[in-house]
């Protein structure tokens, strides 16, 4: 381990200690307030091209295990913490965070004053940044220039980079010690899941409920999907600006009304756009596992996992669609549905992982929708 530095596009420079891989990497600096689940966060494709700052000070305590992967690799561009744990202590551990990031060629920074950084991002909004570890950390001027020249998240289609190249069937279920519901059915209703950067736990939540899942690349045309005669279509989470994924919006417009649709996160934004709504970039987004979302249909509050920097605007005309969930912190739209078109979606992450399991019922609703109830 040697010197590491984080340089924000507005000139804030924070020195720390590097871990994981050496080198330089640019990304959008965002913060996450989850106190657990760093492995799931690292491997969530929605964080592609982002440098994630964890607000919880001690990170790496429980190491890395086989099960908590949300995809096959780490997607973040950089990982910033206050105190990397020098040891790992957990019965499921296989590797340390440091070793894992090295193997994954991802830069980590420790000893960064993360609260100061988070307050900065909260006040000025998320921004472009560069992490550097090793020799590259010396030339902060060059790093600043690099941050300022990095792509803008607005208008960025990142889905093409993270989606699966080929369709595949998903059969794995969750481990029953973590999730109670298990009704696997190899002949269950077929769901075609668009992979915009899908998390494995979404797939597990579907197989756990007796759904048969085929995952398809993001650019799969609607006609091809319909030809598979699915009982439902799922629109996954993913990175970047939803408005830039125009082909997906088109495909969803085609699918609407043909088959029940359920979207999560980017999938929700795409559904919103397909219904005629608008999306906008938020100042610093929602990333964490403690967000209060109110289900307007039941009046219940769900404590939910979030990871989004864009949202469907509150003035959107959804042409018959209605808002079903709002965030009680800032009234952001967190869920919508179009009963006539049999489509619904949520901005947040009912599959959790990491986060509370309060919203798993949405997968049950999808099952009911698929079964025509």
């Amino acid at each position: 381990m040697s010197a590491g530095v984080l340089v924000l596009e507005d000139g804030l420079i924070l020195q720390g200690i590097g871990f994981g891989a050496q080198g330089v990497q640019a990304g959008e600096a965002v913060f996450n307030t989850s106190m657990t689940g760093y492995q799931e966060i690292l491997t969530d494709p929605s964080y592609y091209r982002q440098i994630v700052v964890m607000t919880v000070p001690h990170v790496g305590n429980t190491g890395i295990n086989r099960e908590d992967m949300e995809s096959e690799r780490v997607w973040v561009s950089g990982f910033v913490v206050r105190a990397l744990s020098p040891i790992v202590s957990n019965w499921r551990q296989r590797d340390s965070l440091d070793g894992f990031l090295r193997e994954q060629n991802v830069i980590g920074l420790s000893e960064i004053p993360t609260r100061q950084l988070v307050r900065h991002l909260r006040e000025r909004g998320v921004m472009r940044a560069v992490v550097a570890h090793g020799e590259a950390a010396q030339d902060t001027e060059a790093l600043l220039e690099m941050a300022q020249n990095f792509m803008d998240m607005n208008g960025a289609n990142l889905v093409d980079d993270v989606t699966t190249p080929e369709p595949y069937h998903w059969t794995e279920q969750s481990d029953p010690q973590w999730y109670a519901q298990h009704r696997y059915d190899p002949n269950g209703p077929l769901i075609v899941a668009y992979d915009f950067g899908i998390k494995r736990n979404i797939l597990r939540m579907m197989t756990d409920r007796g759904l048969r899942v085929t995952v398809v690349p993001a650019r799969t045309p609607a006609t091809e999907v319909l030809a598979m005669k699915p009982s439902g279509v799922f629109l996954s989470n993913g990175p970047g600006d939803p408005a830039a994924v125009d082909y997906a919006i088109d495909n969803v417009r085609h699918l609407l009304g043909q088959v029940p649709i359920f979207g999560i996160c980017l999938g929700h934004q795409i559904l919103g756009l397909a219904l005629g709504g608008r999306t906008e970039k938020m100042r610093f987004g929602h990333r964490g596992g403690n967000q209060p979302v109110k289900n307007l249909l039941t009046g219940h509050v769900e404590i939910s996992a979030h990871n989004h920097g864009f949202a469907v605007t509150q003035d959107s005309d959804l042409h018959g669609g209605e808002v079903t969930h709002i965030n009680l912190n800032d009234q952001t739209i967190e869920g919508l549905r179009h009963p006539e078109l049999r489509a619904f979606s949520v901005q947040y992450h009912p599959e959790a992982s990491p986060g509370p399991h309060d919203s798993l019922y949405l997968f049950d609703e999808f099952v009911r929708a698929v079964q025509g109830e």
Partner: protein
Amino acid sequence: MPKRTDIQSIMIIGSGPIVIGQASEFDYSGVQACKALRAQGYRIVLVNSNPATIMTDPQFADATYVEPLTVDICAQIIAQERPDALLPTVGGQTALNLAVGLKESGVLDQYGVQLIGASLESIRLAEDRQLFKDTMTEIGLKSPPSVVVSSVEQALNAVRDVTGYPALIRPSFTLGGSGGGVAYNEAELREIVARGIRLSPVGQVLVDKSLLGWKEYELELMRDARGNFVVVCSIENLDPMGVHTGDSITIAPAQTLTDKELQRLRNYSRMIFDRIGITTGGANVQFAINPDDGQVYVIEMNPRVSRSSALASKATGFPIAKIAALLAVGFTLDEITNDITRVTPASFEPSLDYVVVKIPRWDFKKFVGVDQVLGPQMKAVGEVMAIGRTFPEALQKAVRALDIGISGLGSKPEPLPSPLALRIPTAQRLFQVATAIREGISLEEIVEQTRFDPWFVQQMQMTMAIHETILRKNLRLDDLDAHDFRKLKQHGFSDAYIGQLTGEDEMVVRARRLALGVRANFYRVDTCAAEFEAQTPYLYSTYEEGDEAFPTSRPKVMILGGGPNRIGQGIEFDYCCVHACFALSELGYETIMVNCNPETVSTDYDTADRLYFEPLTAEDVLNIIDREKPDGVLVQFGGQTPLNIAHALQASGAPIWGTSVETIDLAEDRRRFNALMRELKITQPQGATANNREEVLAQARAIGYPVLVRPSYVLGGRNMAIIFDEEGLETWLRERVEWTGHPILIDQFLEDAFEVDVDALCDGQRVTIGGIMQHIEEAGIHSGDSACVLPPYKISQYHLDIIRDYTVRIGLGLGVKGLYNIQYAIKDDEVYVLEVNPRASRTVPFVSKATGHPLARYAAQIAAGRTLEDLGFIKEPSIDGFFVKEAVLPFQKFPGVDARLGPEMRSTGEVMGHASSFGHAFVKAQIAANMPIPTRGTACISVNDFDKATVARIARELAALGFHIVATQGTADYLNRVGVQAQRVNKVSEGSPHVLDMLKAGQIHLIINTPLGSQSYEDGAIIRSAAYQAAVPIVTTMSAAMATLQGIKRLLQKPLRVRSLQAHHRPHSP
């Protein structure tokens, strides 16, 4: 759902006296509930027997009853006040048990009172161990194999068939695991089970498979009537299973769980809530986790707010008790605003970007002979909490916050005879781990012995590595640069610790550090890890970049709290601090509270304008002063702890308000004080100070035995003793004295004197007496352990006039600006001054409640420059009726410790009884202290020769009232000789059937026992201890016996009546 409008008035039950396992955290929760519900327009009827609490201040309720917490008394209050609802969940186990009693006895139904916040069914499901276990099995959760038994025989079978040894024994429905223990063999099993069955109100104990070595976690939870559910905080215990949570070092948030594991605990908690039927409010669930395979056992649930929920509230900024109270009247979580952000709702889960460490504080030195090994029965008397950005920083802050003369982890070498010693949980174990690390014992070995999670041990290794580096390189202060300092400070090293490592004084280190520009910054506890801006200044220090203190430019006063509760310094001082805060706030000052005790009202972010949750060391307080630049600092309200740093603060330029540090010194400095008393022509017992062993012996000889000896600069009479001869003095010097630079005080002991306590106020020009209290026990019993009565019930006007005159002259002579307390003794018609303490005293809340005058507020106003005349407090209040304060002692928790009272304070709490007659007031105090005076049955008398004549009069009257008298031989002979019929009973040493057998068989209802001199001392000790275990009232002085007799007579004449403080003071208050 909006608030309920079908109820208008709500009764809240407090938790009674401070006892081990139930301390000031329930004052905090009770105050929160009262405030929140009154703000919603409900009429609040409050019942609590503890006068030292802030909640029993008349301003917090519409009707405040400082009355015994019994079904009978509460039934009377309900009949009088007719509340619509009863909230039983904010007063600990006491309130919950009382609510069950009120429900089961039909009182609630008779008067149409609804239980809110909990149902009888859910209380039973959660509290009845077997029902709870069955319920867990029913919903598919595992709990440790165990059996509920109600006899020793059943327990033996349970161990043989189910659990094996070691077995964990826990009585049902007791506080703090009272009466529990770990049994390693049959003899221990028999003893613990028998005791547990006796202590359990339902006569049951649980015999558990011992999970020694499993990790322990706790989740603090809330739920509203809509079913919205949040986890407020996860808490991880450093000590593994087997040590009571109250005795464990705990960390928040949990550090060694993956998200899947944490969510599993969350899901289980929710299932348990749903099944137990906690419809609204707060509760906690404890889990044990096998570190090798993650297997989870559910240990228990508390369907109420608790010590842990107070800790969680302070740790997160999420006020559990307040919100629980609002949920109980129908609000939902999303209808309540987060006080800290003021823009987001309470329906969320706090995210912590810091680490919180709680360390319990024990007071074993007060209890010679107590088993100091920690186990399932809580023994701690207080706790500290510290906040840091990392675990090492928080841990070291917590260590120095303990106020036990240890400046950081490993700063004071703790002997470690062998690594195996780490296996035994004790108060010293944390420090032994530091020693083990220094000695190079491997992490694996330390983990193997302690069963601490390796993660924590490794963090401690990092801290100790820094310590070692400084020593190994022999670094001097000048060798440390700003970078080194920053690293040390980020690991929580105090200036004092750095000074110790580099051979410099703390203040020199501080000066060097400041010269290098290394200053503490202050971060906010904001519930949301900086996602939203914090509007409430709840702060902690850290040495990371960025400062969020944002001090204002308003006139401001800082109030230093009392630190951890301990015997001699507890809730009474928090009461004073909180009142000082309120008073200054009313005067328009911004108030800044500094304290590190999570159990208190003072550390509620709602109490002062700004709260600094910091250790009360000179360094930490000066850091805050540097940032805030207060106009004044109050050190006289928090007991001895803030006084101990007053010099250092003043030397660094802090503006100390009120009584000056010089006056405080003058009162402590025996020589100067004696000179002043001579000048004022005020009598004192002969006294002297001594700075070494030889001087002590010589001075004692000169004064003449018996003498009273004690170290100076201590509170609660720590190590104070009455010594009758030189041999005793040598023993005391050997066993109880640590020479710390402060001298030993030696005084003539006034045998058989009456003692009097006076609380008074002086503004420099004038003195007003707040109250004159007469001790019921005679001289020699620590004032904190003695029952006392206001007004005095048998002191002549002549003596009272002398006392008043002395009090005025002493206050003016010392130049007190605020509160002071004087202890007097009256012997042979002479009034002696024993002690003067120019600060808020333990009796201030009691006097304030009895007189209706908030003395601590007055004192704070005087400190701010007001005069007594400005306050309109120029006349000693007259008292209507009698107010008796009785001490509550923890002997039930410490079997084997002699329960005799002495000059060293050992009580943990107090209760108050008030009535128009002394007898009734005394009886109420005894009932409230859980030593209810019997009106019939058998009285067992065993007294020394000196007391025989007096006891004969008492025995004669008891017999006339219908009591059967039994007595040990000498006493029986004497009684029979003077014509009082007394049946002889064997002393324990005389063989069975003896007094202990009778006691255990429930054949004795009252014991009068005075120490019998050294020969039969053992006998007396056994009886006293057994009486506490059997909860039979025991009287150990003749004056208390007289008072008891008066009480019995009064009780037989007239039933007890209840009256609220508001009703009591109404005719007198303007």
